[in-house]
C-alpha cells in the first residue's frame, strides 16, 4: 500500500514537474524570437489586403495583392490612387514598376525607409526580412501583461546602422509566441512608430496578423492600417513571378 502511494506521489510529481516545465518562462531571447518566427513561418503565401491611411486631410484607401515566397515579396496595387504599381522586394532591393514609366525603378537599401504608397508603413515594414537574430542583438527586459496576455518584453538593438529602426521593443505573447506590439525607435531612442498586430489568422498552425495598425509617433495625426481580406498559405507560386525583368508585364 505504502509503495502504491509512493509511486502515485512520484508519478504526480513527475507529471507536475513536466507541466511546470512546459509553462515555464523562457529566458533566452534568441529562443523566443526563433519560436516567434516558427509560429509565423510559411513557405509561400498569397494575400489581399486593404491599406487605409489617415492624415489631417482624411483617409485614403488602397487595396493590394501580395505574393511571398522564400523571403521575396511582390505587391500589386489593385485599387486606389496608385493602382497598377508593382513593388518587388528581392533581398535588400526594392524594384518598383509604375504604369507610366518605361523603366523599372530600383531603390537601394536606403530606399527601404521610404513610405509605402504614402502610408505610415515603409517598404521595410511590409516586405521586411524577419530574421531578427541576424539583424539585432536581443535582450529580455522582463514580462508584461498586454491586452490581458502575458508577454515577453524584448529589446532589439540593430547590429548595422543601415537598419531602418535602430531600436525595437517587441511584446511577444508568452503562450503563442506571436508579436502583439512593436515600438520602433531611432538610435537616440526617439519613438518613431508603434505597430499593433491584431485579429490573428490561424491556418494549419500558421499564425498571421489579420490587421496591422501603425501609429506615427512623429506626425501624431497620421496612422495607417492594413487589413487582410483573404489569405492562402503554402500554395504553389511560380518563381518567375519574382523576376524584375517581368515586372512590367
Amino acid at each position: 500500500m505504502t509503495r502504491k502511494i509512493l509511486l502515485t506521489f512520484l508519478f504526480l510529481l513527475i507529471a507536475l514537474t513536466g507541466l511546470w516545465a512546459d509553462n515555464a518562462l523562457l529566458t533566452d531571447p534568441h529562443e523566443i524570437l526563433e519560436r516567434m518566427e516558427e509560429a509565423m513561418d510559411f513557405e509561400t503565401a498569397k494575400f489581399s489586403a486593404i491599406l487605409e491611411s489617415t492624415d489631417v486631410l482624411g483617409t485614403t484607401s488602397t487595396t493590394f495583392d501580395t505574393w511571398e515566397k522564400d523571403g521575396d515579396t511582390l505587391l500589386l496595387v489593385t485599387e486606389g490612387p496608385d493602382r497598377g504599381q508593382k513593388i518587388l522586394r528581392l533581398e535588400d532591393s526594392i524594384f518598383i514598376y509604375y504604369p507610366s514609366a518605361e523603366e523599372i525603378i530600383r531603390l537601394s537599401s536606403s530606399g527601404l525607409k521610404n513610405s509605402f504608397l504614402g502610408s505610415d508603413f515603409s517598404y521595410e515594414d511590409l516586405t521586411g526580412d524577419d530574421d531578427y537574430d541576424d539583424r539585432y542583438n536581443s535582450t529580455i527586459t522582463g514580462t508584461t501583461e498586454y491586452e490581458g496576455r502575458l508577454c515577453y518584453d524584448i529589446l532589439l538593438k540593430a547590429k548595422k546602422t543601415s537598419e531602418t529602426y535602430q531600436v525595437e521593443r517587441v511584446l511577444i505573447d508568452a503562450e503563442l509566441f506571436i508579436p502583439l506590439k512593436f515600438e520602433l525607435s531611432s538610435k537616440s531612442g526617439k519613438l518613431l512608430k508603434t505597430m499593433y498586430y491584431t485579429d490573428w489568422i490561424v491556418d494549419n498552425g500558421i499564425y498571421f496578423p489579420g490587421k496591422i495598425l501603425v501609429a506615427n509617433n512623429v506626425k501624431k495625426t497620421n496612422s495607417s492600417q492594413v487589413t487582410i481580406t483573404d489569405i492562402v498559405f503554402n500554395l504553389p507560386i511560380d518563381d518567375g513571378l519574382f523576376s524584375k525583368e517581368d515586372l512590367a508585364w
Partner: protein
Amino acid sequence: MLSLALKNTKRNRRRSILTALASLVSVLVIIIVLAYQLSMVDSLIDTNVLHMTGNIRVRKANYSRYEDAQPMQFYIEDFEPLAEEIGKIEEIDRVEPISRFFVSVYHNNEMKKASLIAVDKDNSSFIHGKGSELLAGHYIEKANEILVSPGFLKTFSKEVGDKITIVTRTTRGGTNGVSFTIAGVLFANDAQIANETIYADLGRVSEIVQMENGAIELLVILKDQDTKVEEYRDIKDKIVSVIEKSGRESSDYQVATWHEVSMVYPFINIFYIAVGVIAFLFFLIASSLIINTTTMSIMERKREVSTLAALGFERKSIRRMFIQESLVISLVGSIIGTVIAAIVVILFGKIGFDVSIFGVEAMDGWGYPKLLYPHLDWYWYVLCAAGMIAITFLASFLTTLKINKIEVTDALRVEY
C-alpha cells in the same frame, strides 16, 4: 579771362589731355558701373516677380506654412475658374498657374534631384516670355514631352529626343513614376531656374501627382509694374473677394504681394545704397585726380600767376581763370566720356553681357540673370556728367586757394 583760359588749355596740351582723361575715364566708369548695377537690380526684381512670386501670389495658406516639407497636398483645386475670375480684375494683366517642386530623376540606377516647373505649355512666360529662349529642339507638343535647361542635359548626359524617367511624390503622399521625352532645351535668363530644371505641361503633371485640375500657386502679373506698394492692398482685397465669391474659404488661401514674400525685396534698398556708394567712390577718385592735376598746373605756373598779379590782375580773377580752365577741360572730358559710355551701354543692351564672369553664379537662387542687358535712363547720363563738372569745380576751387598764398616777388625772382 575766359578766352585766356581757353588759350591756356591749348598751351599745355599734355596736361590738358591728362585732366580731360581723368574726367572722361571717371564719367565712363561711373556710367557703366551704374548701368550694370541698376540693370542688375531691375533684372533681379523682374525675374523674381515673373518667375518666383508674381506681383501677387495666391496659394493655399497651409502650403506656405509647411513649405519646407513640399506639402503638395495643399494645392489649389480646380484653379481654372478661379484664375479666370482673378484675371478679370482691372489692374491685372494675367494669371499664371504653376506647380513647382523637386523630383527625382532616375539615372544610372540612382535617383538625382531636379527641379520641375509645371506651367501652361502654350502661354506661360516661363517658356515663351522675356529672357526665355529655345536653344534646341521644339516646344512641348505632346503630353509626355518636356523641355529641360542646358544644365540638365549636362548633368544627366542627355540629348534632345532622349527619354528620362522621373519619380515624384503625389498629393496623397505616395510616389509616381513617369517617362518623358526631351523635346527641347530652354534657356531661361534667370540664375535661380537655370540649372537642373525640367519644364512640363501643368495638365500632365497634375495627373501624375494626382492633383486633379490643380496648381500649387497662381502668379498674378499686374498691368502696371510701377504700381506703388500701398496700391497693392486694394488689388489684394479684390482677389480675396473673388476667392470668397467662388465659394472657397478665403482663410484657406494666402494672397501675398511680392514685397511680402520675396526674399530679394528686403535687400533692394541695400542694393541701391551699394550703387550710390560705388558711384561716390568713383567720384572721389575722379576728384583726387582733378585736385592733383590742378595743383600741378598751379605749381608749374607760379611765375605766370605772379606775372598776372604784377600786371594788376586780381587774385580772384586769376583763380577764376584757373577754375574756368579746369571746367572747360572737364566739360570736354565728361561729354566724350558720356558719349562713349552711352555707346557701350546701348551696345551691351542689345547683345547682352555675360555676368557669370563676375562670379554671379555664386548667387544662384537670388534671381540674377545669366545674361544682363544693361540700360540706363537718360537723366543718369546728364547727372553723371553734371556731377563730374561739379566735382571739378569744387576740386579746382579748393586747389586754386593756393594762388592767394603765392608771393609775387619770390615767384618772379630769377636765380642765376
